[in-house]
């Protein structure tokens, strides 16, 4: 039987993997993937808990998160395309203009 506990453990692991990816990888596209992983880990939690409590609120939130994630991916990818045209790279290690 797969219960709430298993769902939460999986989503926690997914979130951790995503977070470590965001922190360690330098390729911008991989960074995005890791971010999506973290968002979906949260989505999984929402759905699992919604089922567990029998309410619809969690499902609504998942749709919201998916919409935001889609928008974010669209804007982010556009930025990275622009950055690639400028620097011929999407390596975030080379992008520290805000610190100078």
């Amino acid at each position, binding site marked *: 039987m797969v219960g709430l506990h298993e769902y939460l453990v999986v989503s926690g692991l997914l979130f951790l993997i995503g977070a470590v990816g965001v*922190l360690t990888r330098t390729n911008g596209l991989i960074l995005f993937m890791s971010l999506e992983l973290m968002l979906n880990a949260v989505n999984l939690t929402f759905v699992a808990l919604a089922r567990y409590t029998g309410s619809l609120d969690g499902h609504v939130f998942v749709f919201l998160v998916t919409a935001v994630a889609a928008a974010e991916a669209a804007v982010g990818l556009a930025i990275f395309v622009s950055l690639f045209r400028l620097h011929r790279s999407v390596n975030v290690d080379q*992008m*520290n203009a805000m*610190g100078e």
Partner: protein
Amino acid sequence: MEATWLWLIPIAPLVTSVLCGAIALATRNAEAPPRRLVGWLACLGPGLSFALSLLAWTELRGLMPVGRMLSQTAYRWIDSGVLQLDVGFVVDPLSSLMLLFVTGVGTLIHIYSTGYMHAERGFARYFAYLNLFMFSMLILVLADSLPLLFVGWEGVGLCSYLLIGYWFEDPAKAAAGKKAFVVNRIGDFGVLIAMFLVLWTLQGVGSASLSFADLRRHTEAFTPALATAVCLLLFLGATGKSAQIPLYVWLPDAMAGPTPVSALIHAATMVTAGVYLVARMHFLFALSPVASTIVAVVGAATALLAATIAVAQNDFKKVLAYSTVSQLGYMFVGVGVGAYGAGIFHVFTHAFFKACLFLGSGAVIHALHDEQDIRRMGGLRHKMPLTFWTFVIATLALAGIPPLAGFFSKDHILWEALSKPNVVAPWLPPVLWVVLVAAALCTAFYMWRLVALVFLGSFRGDAHTYEHAHEAPPSMAMPLVLLATGSVLVGLLGVPHLLGGSNRLESWLHPSFTLAQDTHLESPPHEGEESGGSAAETEASVGHEPVSAHATSAALPESAAMAVALAAGLLGLGLGHQLYVRRPQAASALAMRLPAVRRLLAGKYFIDELYAAAIVRPLRLFSDRVLWRIVDMRLIDGSVRLLGWLTWALSVAFRFAQSGYVQTYVLVVVLGVFALLWRVL
């Protein structure tokens, strides 16, 4: 009695002042300002005030002596909590007398100015200031409350500053104006504090109005110590405005202004404001024998000090300036010993002869093309006979030669100083009297020296200037003649009983100087009884029947005292004649014999230098070393710089946090989340 037209008296010169000022601004760059129009306008304002003052005086004469008072409440000025204050004007015998000579002498000097200033580019500006001065002075005289009086008080100070520095292109003259203003501010501070004290006291008895009538009604609220404090603070203001020790130093420098200004503001009217203030507040001074005694002592000291300085001055106007300081000292002795009528009488007569002397000096300076050094004058009586004769008349009046005006008023003060007993220092009256007689001797001496050096003998300047010297034009001669006539006649208003007169001026002023109106109802002023009086009146008000001032322990009978004073005046004139006309070399020989005395007197006792060393220079040093270098540079600038430095230092520390690497930020966020979780769980 209510008189709704009193406000017209001060407003008339204000209107003409504004008009003259507008013309001055409009014709700033014009080749020829409209002098004729400005001249007429400028004389119209004070002339109108004079006519209205005459009207007020005749109305006042028609009333019973006890109820002699015209008043008008113009509008509610301050309505703030407990303090209710109206702008109100009042004409009683005291202010009617002041009004008459302020507007009368003022009008004459305006007429004179149209002649004296005719070549000036700032003609309209000058008259705008002079009319503004008339307005302020009339507010001061007509005010029915201390704050309104203070408005006029400050106004005349401002106009004095503007007119002393009239030729502001000359730094020395601008500095003289500034000095007058700053020194006066020291006195004004005293008046302000006194007003606050009065308000604070009157609040205690539930009357928070500062009108003279209310003050008079509530004198019982003042403890002796409080009355003394208020009086001394008021007197501090008076020493500033009326040039007494220790604040007299600005008046001689004020001679930097045009001569008619010296005549009007710095001799006849404004400088008597201090005497007027003391006379106005006589009911408080009567409560404080200590303060009154200090007033008298300071007055006597100033009279002698200034008279001796005047002996050794060589600037025509400086001699007259020190003479003014000295005469103001006499007035303060008068009001200080409680003889308010005598003090005001001297204010009145002095306005005529001193204005005449100043206008005479102006005519001479004008004729000699701005020469002011009397060592380069002489023999001018042939060139300017009219000026000479009016000047001599005024000189004799000042020296106290009967039957000219100065004799009666000065003698009145001398006699009151000698005969009024002093409860604080019983030995004081004879000392005051001797000092004043000595000052009178000096006065006669330096005045005759002035006459001798300017008008007698032969001319000591260059011949060309002498050739061009001319008699004053009619606009200047007319005021001279009128003022000289006044110097002869006005003294007759106050002929003492001893000489068969009835001292009408004293009886006229009497209602203003009685302590309580009601006690006066049953005993109107009758002939032969002294009126006014602080020490005597205080005793009378607390004690039994009114004390007659004649029942005092005067060291001399009145006739003998009068004879001695007259002899002193004649001796001074004779000495002056002997030293400066008969044997001119004797004067310089005497000066050679006493070099220390000459230097001391010519150096004005080095009071200016003393002030500079004791007050001005330490203050400057303190400002420079402490206030500027430490307080301003270190504390104020330093605290601002510290803020800047702090921002910089913090930014150095924190800018490492802003690396620009997104991942670093994320790491911090994650760590933060962990920290938060750790705290919460």
